[in-house]
């Protein structure tokens, strides 16, 4: 443990009620939680069980820590709660167990809430804390969070979180806190900041994406429905931007027009485009754009914006371009190219460069219309060079010191390369083992082969259609193609033909190469004229070294300080790089030609490299103990993790390389993320100084009184004539899935007893007669669209005398569907009024509840239950469950089933309500289903036709990007 961590623990334990800890992202929460667990374990014997609430277990291990899984039998869970050990448990299961008495609050001595920023007064965690605190005032609650930004997003949010958890103290530990920074900066690692310039095309795309984002934002501002202040392009690069927009628009979301909604969706897409530009290679990026175009269709606003045209054009030009072979051969072609040039006049500078290169190489290969550009991501080459340089240095070093080098132990040989995602990791691994060119060639080949697959399929289909139905293009096939054509209107047909021609050529090559030796085939591939900009222009990498960590880590000053400043004592590295550049090319060819001998050569030139995807969130640093870390995609959290790793191992030599694209959104995002966190902490510090947390005489937080006493006193005055006996409590049966909403919590607060079970029909059962399906507004619209609501109401009407649809508005949103002027002149089938009318016409017995808020709902429920019998739990569970598999008796059903897979299964053609259960019995999982024969399927599904339908659907070739 580091010094500041010990201090946090000391502070935390000095408070009897617990506390809320907010750390900078990347500082270890795990250590704190593990030390809580260690302190909890005997000796001295703990007073009760320590429960750690998480929706997904964090990467945290401790010999004394176990998980309480949802699929464990409830009786087992009951005995576990009594053991006084430490457990992970999901709040949903814990709520159910607390409500059913399987978990006795007095057995709990402490609750740890991870992700405390998610807590609100209606959240599950708050419900758990309340259920325990009512019965057991002594329980200590610790909340942890490392997302300060999320804590300042609403009005007095921290204060409310603290009230919910019943804690009085908040502990703020930002990265800039004095002790944290002294601890982390005592032995700073050596940092090398490498700025890689982007290619012209990349810059072009980035500008175009940012331009389009700006255009979308302007459009959004024009709707006058959002606050302009937060809507900046810079904010637009963050995921949380979606939250900002959604929070503003949510109250009126269902009243928004299609166009505004599309704008919000488009902004998300554009943010991804900006992000992927620096993460993916040119071919993958183009592929992504193609899929995007195929799926977004005509609905997207941005696709038709002026600047988005540039995105597509540049993206294409990074991969290939179409040129006429000798001008006279295909007149239409030259025209097309010409028109494209005209459109791109403003970018002529960039394109000219390309054109020259391609034309010169084109001379050698007449008749070819497709010119490969295949731009390599500049970072790839830099990474490779960097690795070579590192190896060179090591070799020199070891020669000098004759094996004395490994005084740090053998493990320090490992070089860790941290990328954002698994995809990049695998790609970079290929780059290193197979060579950069091979990787991009492979992507390109796949891209082309994909095209040809689609073409051959569409041809087949067309033929089939003509044969079978006689009027070919007029059936379904035509309509989809027509749609595609509209989408592809900007793509010219010729270009497509050219692409397909190239694709078929590659396919032929593939086929011939299968029979022959792999060596020549590789040779052929590399002899294809590749117009590689990276190779030609000497890479202008600015390498600068600074010994001062503070500049690069933590605080973001490196932007100005290090770029362009080539430190003199490192000049030799540049010349060395050049030398290696020359060396590496023959090496690469040798390497690719003799795959079997790579191991030997490889070991000489490149050090052992370990790749790590930051997204995977594994704690790899302590495991691998690397001595050199290359941060391929800069990430604030990971930087902090490196700092801590270094502080933990002060004697270890550690060098960290950062690869940034110069002037890219990558840099912008990295710096802004640090600033955002600092701002959040500053605001939290201010809030802390003004905070008022009410406590009672014993110093306990207020608000945890038992609602039972509440309802008793109320019923004795108000319902003196009621037939409820004193002490008899109102009961509501609640579906387990409903614990994701806040209504059960609120109902419990009003003093009713909640019986959690898994219901097949309805969400709440108020009495033997009344069954309620609850819909929030968003749910209502969605389930009308999907048809789920109709089915649910149908089921309720079948089994209950009084089926009820509860339409629950949310307190902070407007209480109406639409304003008067949005209603329109005609009866339109898409309007919510029409859908509701149709529903009530078909189910005249259906009752509707219109509720202003969750709290109103709880009151309505209470009033409906007056003079009604209490619902029967056993009966309610049975309702709607087919009797033949009447094994259902326990309420953990939902946990025992892979509900996602079942929902998926039921949506496959041929699968019906009648046969999906036997399908589930017959095959273990969906993956197994994928391999089952038609005969077996027919047996399971009880019919040839259904089986064939399903099998055909599973095997049908996916024709996605028809052009």
């Amino acid at each position, binding site marked *: 443990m580091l010094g500041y961590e010990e201090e946090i623990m000391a502070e935390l334990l000095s408070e009897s009620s617990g506390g809320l800890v907010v750390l900078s992202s990347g500082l270890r929460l795990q250590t704190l939680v593990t030390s809580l667990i260690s302190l909890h374990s005997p000796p001295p014997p703990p007073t009760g069980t320590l429960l750690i609430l998480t929706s997904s277990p964090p990467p945290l291990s401790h010999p004394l820590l176990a998980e309480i899984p949802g699929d464990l039998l409830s009786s087992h869970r009951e005995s576990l709660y009594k053991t006084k050990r430490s457990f992970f448990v999901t709040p949903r299961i814990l709520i159910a167990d607390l409500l059913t008495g399987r978990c006795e609050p007095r057995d709990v001595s402490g609750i740890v809430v991870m992700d405390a920023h998610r807590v609100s007064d209606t959240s599950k965690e708050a419900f758990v804390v309340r259920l325990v605190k009512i019965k057991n005032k002594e329980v200590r609650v610790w909340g942890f969070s490392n997302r300060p930004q999320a804590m300042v997003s609403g009005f007095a949010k921290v204060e409310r979180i603290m009230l919910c958890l019943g804690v009085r103290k908040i502990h703020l530990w930002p990265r800039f806190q004095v002790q944290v920074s002294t601890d982390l900066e005592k032995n700073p690692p050596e940092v090398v900041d490498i700025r890689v310039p982007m290619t012209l095309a990349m810059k072009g795309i980035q500008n175009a994406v940012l331009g389009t984002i700006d255009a979308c934002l302007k459009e959004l501002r024009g709707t006058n429905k959002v606050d302009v202040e937060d809507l900046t392009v810079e904010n637009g690069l963050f995921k949380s931007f979606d939250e900002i927009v959604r929070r503003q628009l949510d109250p009126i979301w269902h009243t928004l027009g299609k166009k505004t909604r599309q704008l919000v969706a488009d902004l998300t897409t554009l943010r991804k485009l900006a992000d992927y530009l620096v993460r993916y290679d040119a071919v993958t990026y183009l592929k992504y754009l193609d899929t995007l175009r195929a*799926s977004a269709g005509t609905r997207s606003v941005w696709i038709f914006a002026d600047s988005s045209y540039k995105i597509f054009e540049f993206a294409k030009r990074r991969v290939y371009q179409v040129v006429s072979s000798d001008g006279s051969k295909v007149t239409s072609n030259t025209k097309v190219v010409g028109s494209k040039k005209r459109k791109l006049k403003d970018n002529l500078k960039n394109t000219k460069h390309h054109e020259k290169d391609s034309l010169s190489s084109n001379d050698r290969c007449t008749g070819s219309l497709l010119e490969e550009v295949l731009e390599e991501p500049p970072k790839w080459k830099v990474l490779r060079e960097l690795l070579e340089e590192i190896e060179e240095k090591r070799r020199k070093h070891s020669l000098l010191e004759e094996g004395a080098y490994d005084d740090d132990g053998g493990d320090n040989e490992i070089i860790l390369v941290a990328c954002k995602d698994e995809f990049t990791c695998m790609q970079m691994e290929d780059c290193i083992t197979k060579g950069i060119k091979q990787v991009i060639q492979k992507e390109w080949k796949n891209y082309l082969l994909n095209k040809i697959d689609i073409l051959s399929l569409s041809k087949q289909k067309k033929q089939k259609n003509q044969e079978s139905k006689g009027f070919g293009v007029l059936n379904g096939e035509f309509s989809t193609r027509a749609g595609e054509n509209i989408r592809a209107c900007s793509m010219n047909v010729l270009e497509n033909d050219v692409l397909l021609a190239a694709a078929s050529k590659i396919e032929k090559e593939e086929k011939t190469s299968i029979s022959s030796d792999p060596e020549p085939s590789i040779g052929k591939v590399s002899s294809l004229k590749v117009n590689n900009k990276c190779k030609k222009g000497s890479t202008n990498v600015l390498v600068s070294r600074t010994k001062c960590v503070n500049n690069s880590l933590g605080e973001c000053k490196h932007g100005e300080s290090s770029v362009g400043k080539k430190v003199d004592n490192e000049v030799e590295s540049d010349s060395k790089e050049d030398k290696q550049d020359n060396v590496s090319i023959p090496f690469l060819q040798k390497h690719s030609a003799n795959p079997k001998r790579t191991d030997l050569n490889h070991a000489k030139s490149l050090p052992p490299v370990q790749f790590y995807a930051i997204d995977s969130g594994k704690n790899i640093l302590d495991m691998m103990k690397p001595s050199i870390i290359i941060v391929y995609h800069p990430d604030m959290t990971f930087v902090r993790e490196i700092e801590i790793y270094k502080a933990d191992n002060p004697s270890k030599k550690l060098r960290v390389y950062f690869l940034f694209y110069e002037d890219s959104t990558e840099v912008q995002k990295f710096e802004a993320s640090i600033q955002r966190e600092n701002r959040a902490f500053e605001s939290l510090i201010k809030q802390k100084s003004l905070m008022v947390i009410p406590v009672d005489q014993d110093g306990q937080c207020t608000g945890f009184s038992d609602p039972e006493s509440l309802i008793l006193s109320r019923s004795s005055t108000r319902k003196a004539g009621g037939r409820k006996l004193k002490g008899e409590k109102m009961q509501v049966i609640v579906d387990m899935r409903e614990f994701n909403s806040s209504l059960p919590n609120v109902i419990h607060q009003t003093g009713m007893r909640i019986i959690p079970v898994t219901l097949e029909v309805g969400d709440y059962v108020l009495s033997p007669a009344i069954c309620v399906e609850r819909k929030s507004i968003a749910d209502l619209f969605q389930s009308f669209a999907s048809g789920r609501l109709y089915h649910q109401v149908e089921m309720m009407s079948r089994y209950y005398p009084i089926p009820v649809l509860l339409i629950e508005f949310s307190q902070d949103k407007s209480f109406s569907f639409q304003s008067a002027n949005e209603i329109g002149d005609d009866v339109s089938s898409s309007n919510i009024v029409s859908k509701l009318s149709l529903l009530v016409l078909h189910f005249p017995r259906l009752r509707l509840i219109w509720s202003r808020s969750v709290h109103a709902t709880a009151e309505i429920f209470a009033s409906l239950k007056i003079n009604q019998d209490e619902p029967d739990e056993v009966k309610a569970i049975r309702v709607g469950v087919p009797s033949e598999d009447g094994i259902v008796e326990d309420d953990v059903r939902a946990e025992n089933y892979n509900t996602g897979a079942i929902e998926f299964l039921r949506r496959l053609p041929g699968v019906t309500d009648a046969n999906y259960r036997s399908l589930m019995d017959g095959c273990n999982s969906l993956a197994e289903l994928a391999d089952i024969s038609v005969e077996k399927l027919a047996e399971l599904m009880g019919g040839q036709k259904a089986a064939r339908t399903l099998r055909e659907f599973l095997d049908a070739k996916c024709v996605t990007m028809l052009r």
Partner: protein
Amino acid sequence: STSTSTVNRNAILVSHRQKGNPLLKHVRNVKWVFADVVCDYVLGDSSCALYLSLRYHLLHPEYLYFRIKELKKNFKLRVILCHVDVVDVLKPLLEVTRTSILHECTLLCGWSFEECGRYLETIKVYENKSADNIREHMDNDYMSRLNHALTTVRRVNKTDVITLGSTFGSLSGIMDASMEELARCPGIGEAKVKRLYDTFHEPFKRVS
């Protein structure tokens, strides 16, 4: 007289009590005629509606009860068309909700005369309409069905469906894919890979 009866069949019958209700101005898509009827509006052979303004209800809380009592059980669908024209809705709406459920009426809320009028029009126009519009249905072409199935996995969108489809060729290909293969698809991140893989490979029944 036959002609008048056909007119009446295609028109909303409006009680004389409703004379002067501004709502009537907004009933334009169907004909309406005044008639001697017990309820406020007769919307079809088996459906009728009572109009209630919440503001009026606050002044005369017993009104609704007496009107419902008059109705007897002549209609299958008995709508209480509640005009939400007060700001503080909690108490009056609770009372109206309770009354309507206890007395077997369907409560519909409108926030403007336009919306209330539209409910009346729609119920009349849709009198004999099938429920297809709100039933589960989907386009039967391959892509919609594929979308329909794959988008059950949380956060998987239509772009991802296309990516998956074009990468693996068929649905069974997607279902058989390894985690690594899934991770190689552009735009499909760590979390989505895991969710997809779990959906396909976790057994349907976790406990045997």
